[in-house]
């Protein structure tokens, strides 16, 4: 959704004028026929659509001239009809309560015939948005239904029977309910100028009907791409494991994710493509898709799955390419601010949604965005389309887009703060050694007592770090334990690990630069290190290779490395500021 709710009316007016002169595409003509004063909707609707690159040009018909205007404007791309009961005859809302049956029926017949005429005149217009009648502006909590309310009900019934394929009925009451009756109406201007609705009402109304117009312009979204951890289920697969991730409707948080998957499934049934883009081991994700008992999205629903360790910009580009749709047809959901901002910045065409911090708002957020996929001409063919896409998928070798990623990282103002033998964070360090699975070279688990021994011993040091960027601080998220053998001028890296939250920012290399520099200054000439394979740490198999260590032995999943510090090639990452946290 665009940020229209936070914009003031005068700002919208100003930006809208500018947008109007910026867009070059053919103008898209929208005519609004009305029997009340609604001129404020013009710029608001134009703004909402121009923001989506639709060069909307809104014309407001003559005041209270719907029938004649329906002839005049039939050639518009879209005709919108605001037909307010209160002004069918001035003050109908109170006059109708005094009507006898004959009078009631007479006005009912009159409006029915006017509706017929209007619909006939607009028969060839490609899209007509007809607001359903509503009594809400003049209803109250009376137990007995007023004539005014009955009148609205009966007209709506008639309208529903009459509409053809080109006419969509708009539920005004949904808009009024969403804004609130009080905030939707400004009766000051009703009595002076026959205007009824507030700016806030028009903003919500414009957002509400936007999907129709997007669809008519071929701008509906086609694919919904999910991150996995904490987006499709609660927890981190690579850390918590297959059994601990939660998406069961029987648990509190799991039920939220179960609802999310069900919404996705329902969208898929309507022809929306569902895909995955997550940093995970592909095998692990396959296992969940194929055999996790609580998983709702299965292989047959997921058209494309990019679960790997490549950056998400490259992966999303690849997804668009393989599905043969534009980037602007993708909606991507992720829980991490890092990934969300990366995509917003690097691939602004993609609509990016972030899992809300208040998890219980997540299903509501997704539901509010379903309109993005709205398709005017949804048919059974759309279901077949999914099969078509599946057949059309073609694979090309992944294009690396390093430069763009580097550029983004540079904009983050990354700061690495390194702590040495800091007793105050021993509990957190121990916890990290016990919980970290993916970016963990040796996966040695240590108690607080163990860590305390490392911290206090003369021949070992414990380094940990926190990372911050312009969006916030990650807290203590990385650890390295080094044993020193000063007599032999040798050091051994016992543990090197990092929380998966901060993977992909090259933090590990800046940390390694710092450590090797410090080791060298302590008179050490040679560093040894190990990679011990587990079923979760595949991604760091070649970490030491990348850090210019030499592989000296590889045996049964254990890789032994050594480095002569003179031969170390520092990465010197310019965009990470390194501080000493003492």
């Amino acid at each position, binding site marked *: 959704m665009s940020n229209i709710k936070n914009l*003031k009316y*005068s*700002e919208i007016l*100003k930006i809208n004028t500018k947008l109007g002169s910026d867009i070059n595409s053919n103008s898209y003509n929208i005519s609004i026929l009305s029997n009340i004063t609604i001129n404020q909707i013009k710029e608001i609707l134009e703004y909402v659509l121009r923001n989506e690159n639709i060069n909307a040009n809104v014309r407001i018909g003559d005041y209270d001239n719907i029938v004649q205007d329906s002839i005049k404007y039939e050639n518009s791309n879209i005709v919108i009809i605001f037909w307010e009961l209160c002004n069918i005859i001035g003050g109908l809302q109170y006059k109708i309560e005094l009507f006898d049956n004959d009078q009631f029926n007479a006005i009912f017949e009159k409006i029915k015939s006017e509706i017929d005429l209007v619909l006939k005149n607009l028969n060839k217009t490609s899209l007509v948005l007809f607001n359903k009648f509503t009594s809400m502006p003049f209803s109250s909590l009376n137990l007995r239904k007023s004539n005014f309310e009955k009148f609205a009900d009966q007209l709506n019934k008639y309208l529903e029977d009459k509409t053809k394929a080109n006419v969509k009925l708009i539920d005004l009451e949904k808009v009024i309910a969403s804004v609130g009756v009080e905030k939707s109406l400004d009766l000051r*201007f009703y009595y002076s*100028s026959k205007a009824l609705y507030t700016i806030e009402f028009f903003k919500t109304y414009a957002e509400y009907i936007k999907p129709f117009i997007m669809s008519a312009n071929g701008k509906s979204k086609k694919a919904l791409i999910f991150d996995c951890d904490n987006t499709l289920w609660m927890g981190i697969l690579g850390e918590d494991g297959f059994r601990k991730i939660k998406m069961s409707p029987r648990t509190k948080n799991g039920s939220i994710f179960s609802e999310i998957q069900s919404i996705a499934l329902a969208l898929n049934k309507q022809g929306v493509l569902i895909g995955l883009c997550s940093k995970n081991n592909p095998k692990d994700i396959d296992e969940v898709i194929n055999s996790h008992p609580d998983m709702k999205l299965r292989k047959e629903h997921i058209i494309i799955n990019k679960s790997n360790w490549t950056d998400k910009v490259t992966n999303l580009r690849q997804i668009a390419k393989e599905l043969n749709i534009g980037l602007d047809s993708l909606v991507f959901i992720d829980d991490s601010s890092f990934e969300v901002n990366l995509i917003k910045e690097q691939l602004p065409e993609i609509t990016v949604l972030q899992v809300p911090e208040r998890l219980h708002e997540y299903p509501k957020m997704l539901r509010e965005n379903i309109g993005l996929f709205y398709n005017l001409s949804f048919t059974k063919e759309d279901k077949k389309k999914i099969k078509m896409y599946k057949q059309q998928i073609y694979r090309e070798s992944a294009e690396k887009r390093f430069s763009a990623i580097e550029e983004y990282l540079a904009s983050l103002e990354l700061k690495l703060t390194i702590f040495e033998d800091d007793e105050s964070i021993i509990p957190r360090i121990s916890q990290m050694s016990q919980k970290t699975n993916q970016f963990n070279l040796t996966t040695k688990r240590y108690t607080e007592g163990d860590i305390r021994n490392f911290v206090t011993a003369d021949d070992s040091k414990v380094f940990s770090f926190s990372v911050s960027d312009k969006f916030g601080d990650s807290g203590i998220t990385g650890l390295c334990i080094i044993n020193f053998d000063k007599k032999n001028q040798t050091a051994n890296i016992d543990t090197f690990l990092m929380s998966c939250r901060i993977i992909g920012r090259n933090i590990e290399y800046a940390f390694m630069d710092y450590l090797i520099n410090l080791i060298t200054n302590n008179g050490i000439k040679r560093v040894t290190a190990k990679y011990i394979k587990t079923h979760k740490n595949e991604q760091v198999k070649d970490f030491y290779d990348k850090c210019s260590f030499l592989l000296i032995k590889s045996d049964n999943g254990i890789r032994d490395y050594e480095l002569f510090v003179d031969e170390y090639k520092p990465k010197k990452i310019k965009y990470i500021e390194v501080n000493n946290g003492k």
Partner: protein
Amino acid sequence: MENRIKKVMSAVFEVPVEKINDKSSPDTIESWDSLKHMNLVVALEEEFGVHFNDENIVEIMNYSLIRLILSKKLKS
């Protein structure tokens, strides 16, 4: 406050800020009709977080009066 009023008027009436002065009124600004007046009222209310009653709406018929009535409202 002056600048904010002028900015709002400029956006509503689609005239440059520099063209708005103490004498600006429906007589000097062509686009200032009754519909645009309504837009001006809601835009000013939003900008300054105030509420104009029916009397105010009729009163604020030129720039000086807008400034006067707004400053009274903001003081109270």
